[in-house]
């Protein structure tokens, strides 16, 4: 959590800039996290569309992985994946 600022430093009316700091919600995961088998992925992007936390990283139209800073581990991506390319693994598991 960023430093709490004094009232003088806040923009009038509580206006928030779009580039304000994002809260990291990765800590919400309860023991498991998604892992992808890029080989199996067919780039349908259904996981990306359905991810509630915008934690699926897509680069020029292709699925490339997860943003664990935001992923809450809800498993929806795995559920939606037609190719079975996503599985949930223990938090400890190293993914690269």
């Amino acid at each position, binding site marked *: 959590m960023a430093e709490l600022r004094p009232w003088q430093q*806040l923009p009038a009316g509580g206006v928030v800039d779009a580039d304000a700091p994002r809260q990291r919600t990765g800590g919400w995961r309860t023991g498991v996290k998604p892992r992808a088998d890029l080989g199996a992925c067919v780039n349908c992007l259904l996981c990306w569309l359905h991810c509630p936390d915008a934690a699926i990283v897509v680069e020029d139209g292709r699925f490339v992985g997860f943003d664990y800073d935001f992923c809450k581990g809800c498993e929806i991506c795995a559920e939606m994946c037609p190719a079975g390319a996503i599985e949930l693994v223990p938090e400890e598991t190293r993914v690269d």
Partner: protein
Amino acid sequence: MSTETAIRPELLTGGEAVAHAMRQIDPDVVPVYPITPQTPIIQVFSKFVADGRASGELVNVESEHSAMSAAIGSALAGARTMTATSSQGLALMAEIVYIAASMRAPIVVALGNRALSGPINIHCDHSDSMLIRDSGVIQLFVENAQEAYDATLLATRLAEHPDVLLPVFVCLDGFTITHSAEPVTLLTDEEVRLFVGDYRLPHPLLHSEPTSQGPFAMPDYYFELRHQQVAAMEAAVGVLDALVDELAAFTGRRYEPLEEYRLDDAARAIVLMGSSAGTAKDVVDDLRRCSRPVGLLRIGSFRPFPADRVRRALSGVSELAVLDRAESLGGAAPLFAEVAAALHGERTRLRSVVYGLGGRDLHPHDVESVFEAFARRNGGTTYLGLRSER
């Protein structure tokens, strides 16, 4: 009537005077819902728009709650926005008035003061203004149609000042000002355009840089965000002074946030707001003629309430009656409490007087009775013109 040049005073009701000010300011958007006694304002303005004499858009919303909501949307989007209401209308939008203030939406509102229900009544008192006295909006009470016109011009600049950015209510007594025709001298449309200038916001919503406006604040930030409004209110006092000077240059008229009338050497004085001040001034003059040391303090700017100036202005006064045209049932009358707070620790003898609820008339002899009464009664609240068995 000719409106391009102000050769001579016109005979206008306060409502018409405000409508002309709106026509000359020519706001972008006016979301509004009808209610007596505000209707003359919006009806006359609607006609101006229908005839192409004003080119903004009216939004005939389905309730006052939506009127203020649409006004916030419009004002923060980046459009100069005005509206008008009264009584129940203000009560229905109260929730959103607080939010307009906290989102710093510089909306100008013409308020035709009218008693709150119940019972339902269409005539004047100040209970509606009092309902929102905590909300963070500025409230300017006027004495007559001319001041209603001038104050509308001031309100626009005051609301939009970068250090202020708050809604400003121009409070006109219902019927006694909104519906009474009095001599009013208008500025030319050109002069008004020069005076009010363009509408600018620090962070308009309609802007290439996206912003989120109206966020959720937890205990870690709410207090700080609210406090900006305290600062804005403090700034408003000085800004208003400057604007009064600036407008006086155009009009030759000055309506001060605080009008001290024959107060200098006054031992007894009354404090009040709105159209009754005129009646009271006549009484003060009469009593002065019988060399009675009486005076009057008219509060023009009720919000922000210039407490220090009030304290100073009344420093010489030993007996003071505060005339409220509203009550706080089960508590101290609003203006009385405000003045008492300003004078705390002082020895001034204070009296609370309530008058004119629901349009009950205030005649010169009523005001006289207040000045007389000092001698006799003290403590308790006096109700002027109330029919009582005792």
